[in-house]
């Protein structure tokens, strides 16, 4: 009898845990466990065919002192993120502003701009490798139309990284869609009030639109930053890190260490550095956001 009563109390909780158990199991086996192992591996030398050998912090020392490619891969990845992410924000925002007007065939326009962002992976990388072909590619043909003699793109240490940035802008439709949703959430009354107060369109843009959409800018910034710092497939397929290491992204370096040279310990150390980098960059953006992101609730709360 007692057992029955207890069971009745526990039962709803048991049901909850049971339904969540696939995730709990997955979290332990594929996330938490591997995280702990990853810390351990990062302190070992582990060539996969032999068991790990403890080396303490030597992997991290090697990274800072001897690895010729480490700082270069950090530099390439950072440069890419610093240029590509703001470009995405500005372009995505401008496109959203244009496609938030009353224009004809609005759905069709939006589809056109959104479409490229849904395709991804190796097929897209190959397409753009062909577009950037220096002799017969689309990019240089288009540049030729306006009288510019295009560079050799993926074969040039100067132009390979810009080529990858241009390619990434083709997928700007995703952030555009988020911006459109953000713009549609701005109450029309704010614009009317501002107009009555005698503001012009430029003032309304800077003092109504931008503050109201700033949380969405923050979101796109963080998502874009995290994705940019993990760039892999394009560089792997299109340039393999070259020419002259100019597109040797961090993730490429990690992949090579782990799966080309089977340096599992060192690759784990690199993964933790990448994690720390992403975390610090994200926290920095979030901390700075109190200066420029406006939350409606702040005023309502006063």
């Amino acid at each position: 009898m007692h057992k029955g009563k207890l069971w009745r109390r526990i039962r709803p909780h048991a049901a909850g845990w049971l339904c969540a158990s696939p995730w709990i199991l997955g979290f332990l086996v594929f996330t938490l466990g591997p995280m702990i192992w990853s810390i351990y591996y990062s302190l070992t030398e582990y060539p996969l065919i032999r068991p790990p050998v403890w080396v303490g912090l030597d992997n991290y020392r090697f990274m800072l002192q001897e690895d010729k490619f480490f700082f270069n891969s950090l530099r390439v990845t950072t440069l890419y993120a610093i240029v590509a992410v703001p470009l995405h924000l500005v372009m995505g925002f401008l496109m959203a502003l244009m496609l938030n007007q009353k224009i004809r065939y609005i759905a069709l326009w939006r589809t056109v701009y959104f479409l490229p962002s849904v395709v991804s992976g190796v097929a897209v990388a190959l397409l753009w490798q062909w577009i950037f072909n220096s002799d017969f590619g689309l990019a240089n043909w288009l540049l030729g139309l306006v009288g510019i003699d295009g560079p050799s793109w993926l074969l040039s240490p100067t132009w390979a990284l810009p080529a990858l940035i241009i390619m990434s802008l083709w997928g700007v439709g995703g952030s555009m869609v988020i911006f459109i949703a953000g713009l549609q959430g701005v109450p029309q009354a704010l614009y009317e009030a501002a107009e009555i107060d005698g503001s012009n369109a430029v003032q309304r843009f800077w003092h109504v639109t931008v503050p109201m959409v700033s949380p969405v800018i923050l979101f796109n910034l963080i998502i874009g930053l995290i994705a940019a710092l993990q760039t892999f497939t394009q560089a792997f397929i299109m340039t393999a890190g070259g020419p002259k290491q100019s597109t040797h992204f961090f993730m490429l370096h990690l992949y090579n260490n782990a799966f080309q040279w089977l340096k599992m310990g060192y690759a784990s150390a690199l993964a933790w550095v990448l994690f720390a980098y992403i975390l610090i960059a994200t926290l920095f953006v979030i901390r700075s956001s109190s200066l420029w992101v406006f939350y409606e609730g702040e005023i309502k709360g006063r």
Partner: protein
Amino acid sequence: MVTGVGTAARHQVDFRIRAGRLLARTSLYMVLSLGAFLFLVPFVWMVSTALKEAGDVMKFPPEWIPQPVLWGNFVEAFTQDYAPFGIFFKNTIVITATAVFGQLLSASLVGFSFARLRWWGRDYLFLVVLATMMLPYQVTLVPVFVLMKVLGWIDSFLPLIVPFYLGGGAFYIFLFRQFMMTIPLELDDAARIDGCGTLWLYARIILPLSGPALATAAIFSFLAHWNDFIGPLIYLNSVSNYTLSLGLRILQGYGGYGIQRWNLLMAASLFVMLPVLLLFFFAQKYFIQGIVTYGVKG
């Protein structure tokens, strides 16, 4: 009374405003058209190359309409003996279908648990779910690979499928939870009074009402598995187990530098993209819903 002079002046101002607006409109349409051209021309370029003869690919300036139109490129891309695309296609379908199914099943069940059931530790665990969204996959890449090796799963589809049956990933759990929270709670009470068990409630009441969330999750899951590259790259060794992404890479590798057969490569790439594009045209609404849920409600 308005004087004659005043009316004329007003007409003039009116005209200026209207002219200004017309100019703004025209330039808006011009910018949009130019942008649309730049966003679409890569697709046209791809189709054009895919239908050309090998010799016509290397012509500059390019010929946009292939002469002759060579549909045989698709056949040839499929019948290479070094890159059997028929097998890659089958493998990709098997992996994608099983993984998507598992991901939807388990993420919806877990999302249901977080949204509709009350249990000890629920809210703490949900914070953990959100925290794992921030964790880059690289951190667990090496140990999970080692785990798969210990299990003897390397060069099989299992590493690309089984993990998705265990929770299905934070983004999908979040998506289902957010949606299921909007379903009226009275439904649960009514079902309970009728003697409904928890699993019955999930399978017969909540899941059937979660159609839009299922559609959105299905699309994103499909895209992720269909286009996945690093997973197959790491786990699959023999060509007979390759997916389309890896197949494209073989095709690329066989060209070598300079003598790349771009017409075949573009035909194969187009083939890989086609299901995604078709899906997009039929379900654009859900693509947008998914992105917006993530972006604005998140």
